[in-house]
């Protein structure tokens, strides 16, 4: 069995099992730690729309805060957009998803993907540097913060190398790329990459809690 066969076969399967297992474990575990129902008299009763509103409104900072967190605001958007374009609109990635989902969608030209991947990598490195140097971020950071950056950074770098056939044979680079994605998938449920799943429920619960008090979250 070659490295590539392992990476695209059993390696991928185990990573996916751990990924799915871990996510359900953590989400179900958190949700089942139910809270008592709030029986105070609500000011507004349409908490669902307040919750959804928060999911949307927390995507950008309130006016009073915008200036202070502009760096994170801008890099946050640049990072996520560049990452999602690179992940979701690169033709070979779409083929990868198609092999499990059974459907596909249009892809973007490779040159655009290369640019977005480089942008994503550069922004992530900038965020890593900030985390290591900004007084607050450096102070509050723990291993998870660095591991989570690392396990996302490596697939990006190996992906760019595989795409440009730089440094080693394509199949080796592809295998390393897949393996690095698998490491990311395995880490995903245990670290803060889970925010990809948790962001919407967390914002939603904030929106409903604020909403029933008549406060826009």
């Amino acid at each position: 069995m070659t490295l590539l066969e392992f990476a695209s076969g059993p390696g991928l399967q185990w990573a996916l099992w751990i990924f799915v297992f871990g996510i359900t474990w953590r989400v179900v575990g958190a949700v089942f730690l139910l809270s008592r129902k709030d029986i105070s008299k609500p000011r507004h009763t349409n908490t669902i729309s307040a919750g959804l509103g928060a999911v949307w409104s927390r995507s950008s900072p309130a006016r009073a805060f915008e200036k202070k967190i502009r760096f994170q605001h801008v890099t946050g958007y640049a990072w996520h957009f560049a990452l999602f374009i690179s992940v979701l609109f690169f033709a070979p990635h779409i083929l990868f998803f198609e092999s499990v989902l059974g459907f596909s969608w249009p892809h973007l030209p490779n040159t655009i993907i290369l640019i977005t991947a480089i942008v994503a990598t550069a922004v992530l490195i900038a965020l890593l540097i900030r985390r290591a140097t900004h007084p607050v971020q450096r102070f509050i950071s723990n291993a998870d913060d660095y591991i989570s950056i690392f396990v996302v950074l490596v697939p990006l770098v190996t992906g760019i190398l595989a795409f440009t056939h730089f440094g080693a044979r394509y199949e080796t680079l592809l295998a390393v790329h897949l393996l690095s994605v698998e490491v990311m998938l395995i880490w995903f449920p245990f670290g803060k990459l889970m925010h990809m799943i948790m962001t919407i429920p967390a914002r939603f619960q904030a929106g409903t809690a604020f909403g029933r008090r008549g406060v826009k979250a």
Partner: protein
Amino acid sequence: MRKDQNLGEYLRMQGVSRRGFLKFCSATASLMALPPSAVSQVAEALATARRPSVIWMSFQECTGCTESLTRSHAPTLESLIFDAISLDYHHTLQAAAGHGAEAAREAAMEENKGEYILVVDGSIPNGNNGYSTIAGISNHDMLIEAAENCFAIVAVGTCAAFGGLPNADPNPTGAVSVSEIIKDKPIINVSGCPPIPVVITGVLAHFLTFGTIPELDALGRPVAFFGQNIHDRCYRRPFYERGQFAETFDDEGARKGWCLYKLGCKGPTTYNACATLKWNQGTSFPIQSGHGCIGCSEPRFWDKGGFYDPISAGQWGSRDALLGAAAAGAALGVGSALAARARKKKAQAAEEI
């Protein structure tokens, strides 16, 4: 051609002029993937080259490799090189058969002890030797015997090089490659199913010219021919870069000659010279004719998933297994949450001021 003649003398006897010889050398240098500046070196070496003795053995094979080499019905450059070697034994091509043929082989081996080149096509059954025998001798034993005094072995075709189709799961005959049996001789793997004929002759030309083993890659293949992957040298590469792919074999993209990546082309992971040397006298190669590369020069290409599955497709495992993982995660999540809630209840019940 007499055995003590060198190639230069032989060609002159055939009425080939110096000019013709130079032409032959240019073409040979091109064949060996040498730069044009190496022509004079090639000419000098070839003029004085001794014709090597070659013993060709076919084991578990389909004769496709031999077909590839001899498909031409008129004399060509390759056949000229063939003429220049002394092909002392080739079961498929020789007229002789049975004990006479085996006697000729043994004689050639004895006469050229330590100098002959052993060419092997086909894999070797390594479990039950009875699967393939010649004149009552098993392939395994014949290979060991022939290899003992050879100068080097050329494993022609993916079967001899890597086990080939006979080695495909579940490998009923226990087929293995030459390199899994012979460990103490230089082995040059000329893989491909079949290999490009000019690559076979190119390797022989290298022996003829330099009398040495060419530079090999990690899989024992000559770097001159297997150093780059198909994808890197493919004329359709610009479509890949632009993200223009044929989605089916009969769509507009296919007609326009777009990249076949999505149709399972294995070009990016296949190392061979098809994209430059091409086939059928340089006419075309699979991708040019509209079909993706199947990766036939790579080990185990037959067991690496479907020919029409894109390289980037992963084996995700069954849906049930994923659902099982989710169910297990959910069960653990519920369990852990219930335990935590019990703890919370206990804390709330404990009255302590």
